């Protein structure tokens, strides 16, 4: 019989090593099993010279090994020294194959055939041994790799790093570090935000991008890999690029089979789920503890603390407070109920629907980012039109949504467990309604980035948020006295679909009775007349299409396709028809909508014979505008070049009404058929600028305008994210003399943006003004509307919203 250890630790990464070091320090008999011939293989395989970070910064490190941010080599040397000094009993080349037995006498079978016995087991195997693989066509080709040892090994290559997590960003930065290698580096992020990686990495990445070292592509994922080439899906469509090497860093999954065989259950069937653990890291089988990345903690500091903590628990500690306890205690102070931190965590987790899937450990980290707030009955949680994009979960009590500003008693209730404020996550619009606590209520407020992180890492949370937003969106669109109960049959059948630009969701002449609701993006409706596609109308986010077929069972009368990448909800016809039968008001409402769409179709039919230049012209102009991003827009400045005399009075007026800085460039931009789209904000439905604003300074105003508040810190992210180049970074010039002083005495630079020569003559301010981001704010708060339009002497400048402008009624105007 071999020796029976008190603890066997599987894996010598930060968490396993820290556990072993602490066991050694306490003189507990232990063995550390490492499958390779060196400690901490994951860190060992980091690229050479990689800077290892120590986040989260506010977390206190509690371990018998030291750890500070620094080079990979330094960190590894430190740990080797610490392990030696502590007297850790390591067994190298010992890969665990299976675990059997029960608490008090476990057997760990090694691949070498040996067996190691221990009373308790700590699983600290991490997830890096099991990376997520690329799934697109050609992913099995040899130039697709899942790790990067030495970034200096490649020269003159086009390298694509897939995945914008920390690993991906660090690989990309390593590859781009030495310009002499001549590599062209691309980093693909399948979403628009960088909510997962560490802040410092994101900052370095953006810096590298600005220096032209890395091409960062957001909202992009690979769809096909061929030798020498890669095909990408971007918001603007497919793109085939040269590619010599792909480094896929899309995270890793736990080696689930091995863990489950040891008797550890997971929270769900989802591939991204984590083991279900007690607050002392114990799994479903007593005596087996799981810590580190496998427990859902990819950060080194967390791992090391857990290594220390778990050894304490095993040796009988019951009142051990986690290292982050004081931070959470301070957060939860002053709340009713006098619960302990772990009671609070369990209270929130078990009561707020979107948090069900979180482990207690994930809950801790989640709460570090979030706030718990209590409201008395009748207190307002937020007002309509207030700024704010955080998500709220109701842990206790309930709230009401005021639907009628005039009558505060009219409220739609939202009960315990549900969420509100979710609209902020999608489009960053202001609060759509006032929310009042209808009883004494406890809510957890989750900031936008933390909520996005939650949705990205916990699939169940994502599904729940999606389901709730879907239900609310359907209710809002169809109104007509519907209640959530009416949708019981419809909701489960709803499918959320991503539509690529240019792809049709409805094809003319085909059968089908699904209704589509456009959640984000926008669509155009086209009809084929005389062999030509004629543009019928533009459908913005928040509207629905496809109702005709449901109501009268006819074939599709027109084609509907996406202008930009869009998300649509597909409501199958059958349950919806049932709903229509039950709700005559809804039917009436839809019939009214349908009639107006029929009229347009009929109008096009009547004009069929005289179709010629006018319609062609109209269709092609509409096509041009959609190409220019009008599909994104909610309000856009257009210039009729047949009227524009080039006086630039629009620019001058803009500068004079905004601190002397013009937010538009008349001359720049595309022109088609005498219709010019100047460089000026389109106030996108899904603002690209808003995706990554650290101080959350970009907001949507009550009139739909996207504006930048004084909170701007001048980081320039929005300027880089804007695909239409409408944001400039500049500092506010000193005030100019009054207009009459210029007219009568020639003082100052005159109307419009002051020239550089004049600025030089001005005394320097004591404190240099920082450059901040400026863009069109649609002259909010100015009676009379946008200054550019008012100041146009010939009426060439007009502001339009696409749904008004891109309608077939233009045809009547055009030909009549």
């Amino acid at each position: 019989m071999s020796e029976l250890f008190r603890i066997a630790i599987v894996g010598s990464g930060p968490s396993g090593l820290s556990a072993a070091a602490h066991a050694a320090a306490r003189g507990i008999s232990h063995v550390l099993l490492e499958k390779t011939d060196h400690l901490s293989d994951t860190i060992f395989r980091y690229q050479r010279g990689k800077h290892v970070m120590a986040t989260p910064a506010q977390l206190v490190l509690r371990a018998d090994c030291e750890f500070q941010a620094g080079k990979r080599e330094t960190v590894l040397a430190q740990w080797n020294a610490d392990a030696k000094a502590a007297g850790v009993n390591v067994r190298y080349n010992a890969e665990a194959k299976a675990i059997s037995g029960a608490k008090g006498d476990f057997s760990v079978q090694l691949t070498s055939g040996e067996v190691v016995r221990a009373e308790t087991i700590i699983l600290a195997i991490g997830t890096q041994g099991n990376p997520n693989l690329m799934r697109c066509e050609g992913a099995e080709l040899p130039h697709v790799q899942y790790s990067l040892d030495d970034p200096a090994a490649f020269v003159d290559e086009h390298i694509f790093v897939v995945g914008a997590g920390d690993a991906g960003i660090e690989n990309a930065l390593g590859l781009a570090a030495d310009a002499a290698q001549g590599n062209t580096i691309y980093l693909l992020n399948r979403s628009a935000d960088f909510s997962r990686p560490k802040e410092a990495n994101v900052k370095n990445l953006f810096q590298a991008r600005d220096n032209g070292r890395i091409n960062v592509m957001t909202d992009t994922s690979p769809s096909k890999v061929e030798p020498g080439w890669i095909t990408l899906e971007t918001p603007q469509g497919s793109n085939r690029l040269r590619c010599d090497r792909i480094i896929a860093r899309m995270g890793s999954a736990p080696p689930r089979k091995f863990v489950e065989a040891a008797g550890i259950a997971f929270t769900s069937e989802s591939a991204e789920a984590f083991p279900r653990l007690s607050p002392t890291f114990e799994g479903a089988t007593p005596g087996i503890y799981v810590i580190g990345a496998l427990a859902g903690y990819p950060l080194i500091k967390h791992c090391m603390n857990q290594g220390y903590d778990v050894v304490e628990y095993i040796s009988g500690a019951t009142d051990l407070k986690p290292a982050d306890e004081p931070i959470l205690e301070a957060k939860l102070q002053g709340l009713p109920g006098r619960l302990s931190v772990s009671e609070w965590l369990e209270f929130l987790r078990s009561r707020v629907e979107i948090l069900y899937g979180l482990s207690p450990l994930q809950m801790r980290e989640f709460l570090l980012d979030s706030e718990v707030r209590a409201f008395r009955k009748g207190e307002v949680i937020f007002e309509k039109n207030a700024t704010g994009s955080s998500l709220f979960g109701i842990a206790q009590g309930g709230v009401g949504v005021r639907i009628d500003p005039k009558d505060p008693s009219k409220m739609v209730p939202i009960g315990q467990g549900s969420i509100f404020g979710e609209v902020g996550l999608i489009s960053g619009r202001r609060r759509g309604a006032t929310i009042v606590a209808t009883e004494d209520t406890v809510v957890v407020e989750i900031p936008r980035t933390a909520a996005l992180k939650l949705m990205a890492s916990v699939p169940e949370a994502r599904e729940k948020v999606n389901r709730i937003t879907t239900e609310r969106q359907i209710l809002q669109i169809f109104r007509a006295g519907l209640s959530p109960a009416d949708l019981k049959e419809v909701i489960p059948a709803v499918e959320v679909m991503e539509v690529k630009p240019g792809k049709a969701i409805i094809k003319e002449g085909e059968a089908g009775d699904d209704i589509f609701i456009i959640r984000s993006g926008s669509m155009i409706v086209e009809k084929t007349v005389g062999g030509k596609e004629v543009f019928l109308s533009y459908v913005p986010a928040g509207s629905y299409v496809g109702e005709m077929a449901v109501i009268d069972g006819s074939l599709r009368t027109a084609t509907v396709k996406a202008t930009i990448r869009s998300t649509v909800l597909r409501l199958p016809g059958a349950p919806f028809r049932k709903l229509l039968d039950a709700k005559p008001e809804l039917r009436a409402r839809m019939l009214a909508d349908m009639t107006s769409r029929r009229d347009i179709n009929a109008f096009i039919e009547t004009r069929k014979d005289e179709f010629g230049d006018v319609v062609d012209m109209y269709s092609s102009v509409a096509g041009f505008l959609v190409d220019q991003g009008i599909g994104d827009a909610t309000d856009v400045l257009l210039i009729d070049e047949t009227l524009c005399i080039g006086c630039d009075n629009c620019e001058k007026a803009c500068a004079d009404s905004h601190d002397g800085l013009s937010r538009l460039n008349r001359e720049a931009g595309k022109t088609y058929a005498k219709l010019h789209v100047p460089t000026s904000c389109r106030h996108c439905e899904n603002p690209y600028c808003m995706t990554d604003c650290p101080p959350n300074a970009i907001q949507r105003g009550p009139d739909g305008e996207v504006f930048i508040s004084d909170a701007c810190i001048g980081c320039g992210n929005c300027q880089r994210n804007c695909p239409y180049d409408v944001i400039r970074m500049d500092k506010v010039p000193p005030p100019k003399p009054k207009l009459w002083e210029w007219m009568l005495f020639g003082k100052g630079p005159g109307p419009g943006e002051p020239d550089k020569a004049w600025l030089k003559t001005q005394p320097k301010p004591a404190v240099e003004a920082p450059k901040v981001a400026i863009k069109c704010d649609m002259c909010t708060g100015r009676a009379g509307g946008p200054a550019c339009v008012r100041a146009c002497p010939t009426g060439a400048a007009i502001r339009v919203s696409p749904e008004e402008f891109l309608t077939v009624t233009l045809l009547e105007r055009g030909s009549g």
Partner: protein
Amino acid sequence: MATLLCVTLTAAYFLIDVRPRHSGGTWMGYSLGALGAALIVWLALLGVRKRAVTAGHYSLKAWVSAHVYLGLSLTVIATLHTGFQFGMNVHTLAYVLMMLVIVSGLFGVWAYASLPNLLSANRGETTRRQMLDALATLDGQLHEAAQPLDRDMAAIVRLSLEKTDIAGGYWQRVFGLYGGCANDRAIERLARARQGARGPEAETLAQIDALLRKKAEALAFARRQVRITALLEGWTFVHVPMTFALLAALTAHIVSVFFYW
């Protein structure tokens, strides 16, 4: 509104029989004169309006439209005010100046109605900045290409680099008077110089010739833009100074009338 004003006033002029005869000195003359003077001042204020970006509801387009129609109505109002009495005096001077302003304004209306099309067609999607940048890039390339040349040959390139005016004076801009354009002269001189050139020098010169010709094209493009812009604003060089002259003459006219009354 302007038409209504003109018709009413013309009708009034013929229907109302004032003694001894129509002139500025009758009650009707004074009314017409006061109305005309007020209109002139209001019309001149467009210059302030377009520069003062104030909050509140206004549309410069509406102001310009009113400016045009009411300005045209002045031809009727002022002519009726004169009672068709003209002479060699300050009063008629004011009238003539006013008519000059109006005629130049009519040219402006034509310009604004017809030239933007040309402007847009010429520039396409190129901005003024890009036109200048294109020329600067060509200059840079010329400078680079001229490095191996000897002093005399380099002088040809320097002629183009240093002496080329893109725009020039107003008349030059409007009529495209770039006969002595340094770039064109450089092309001619280069053509002569190339005849004797051999070997690598010939190659360099050929390259420079191509660059100079490209620059000539870029210049022509920019100058067309400059020409249309000049045409668009040219009439204001008459319209605006004449307005000030008119305001002066009008003041003299009013003061003298009341002084000698």
